């Protein structure tokens, strides 16, 4: 059972919005607190727009209905800057969006869900709680079984 709120990154969004994950996604949204960073939303929308003609306004409104969209505030930027400078000193260079998304999860005490945990491999030692989509799906399947019983 996951107690903390979830923060889905753009890879988790892409993965969980596959038709085969529909029951899992619905259960997550009904039973858990699911958030997405505004930056993950930008990445995801950009992917959708790359592959087909989309109405970005309509998509944004639809996504906003089912997720809590989290903005970037001062605390998040300060945490991201701290992580970036510390990692750069030891030769680790992370994508700025990933750093800000990870900082959001740390600052707001959320579990960051991703389909690509390798993107954040250097961050759990800084307090990031990380969960792969694979592991999340397994947990949710168990929760669904318990719920049905």
């Amino acid at each position, binding site marked *: 059972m996951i107690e903390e709120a979830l923060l889905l990154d*753009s*890879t988790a969004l*892409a*993965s969980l*919005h*596959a*038709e*085969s994950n*529909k029951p899992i*996604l*619905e259960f997550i*949204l*009904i039973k858990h607190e699911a958030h997405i960073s505004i930056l993950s939303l930008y*990445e*995801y929308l*950009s*992917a*959708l727009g*790359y*592959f087909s003609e989309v109405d970005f306004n309509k*998509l944004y409104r*639809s*996504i906003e*209905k*089912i997720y809590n969209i989290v903005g970037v505030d001062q605390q998040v930027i300060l945490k991201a800057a701290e992580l970036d400078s510390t990692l750069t000193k030891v030769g680790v*260079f*992370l*994508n*700025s*969006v*990933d750093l800000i998304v990870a900082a959001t999860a740390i600052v707001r005490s959320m579990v960051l869900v991703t*389909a*690509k945990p390798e*993107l954040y491999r250097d961050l759990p030692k800084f307090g990031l709680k990380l969960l792969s989509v694979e592991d999340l799906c397994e947990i949710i399947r168990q929760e669904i079984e318990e719920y049905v019983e």
Partner: protein
Amino acid sequence: MKTIAVDEETWKRLRKLRDKFGAKSYDEVIDKLIELWHKQELTEGVEELLYPDEKSNRFLNYVFNKKLMKQDKQD
């Protein structure tokens, strides 16, 4: 506690639902109705944001590869 007024017909329907739900109070009935409404909204919302697995996989690869490209540039 707050009081709300409903007409006779609504009250009869709420009473039927209270029996169906096995609820102890109308507060519980209204709470359950709100929960069901949220579930319905979410289900409809999810429906319009689902993509075939193959397409979702393409979105995932696109996002991931772009991230790697940005990391390479930083290196």
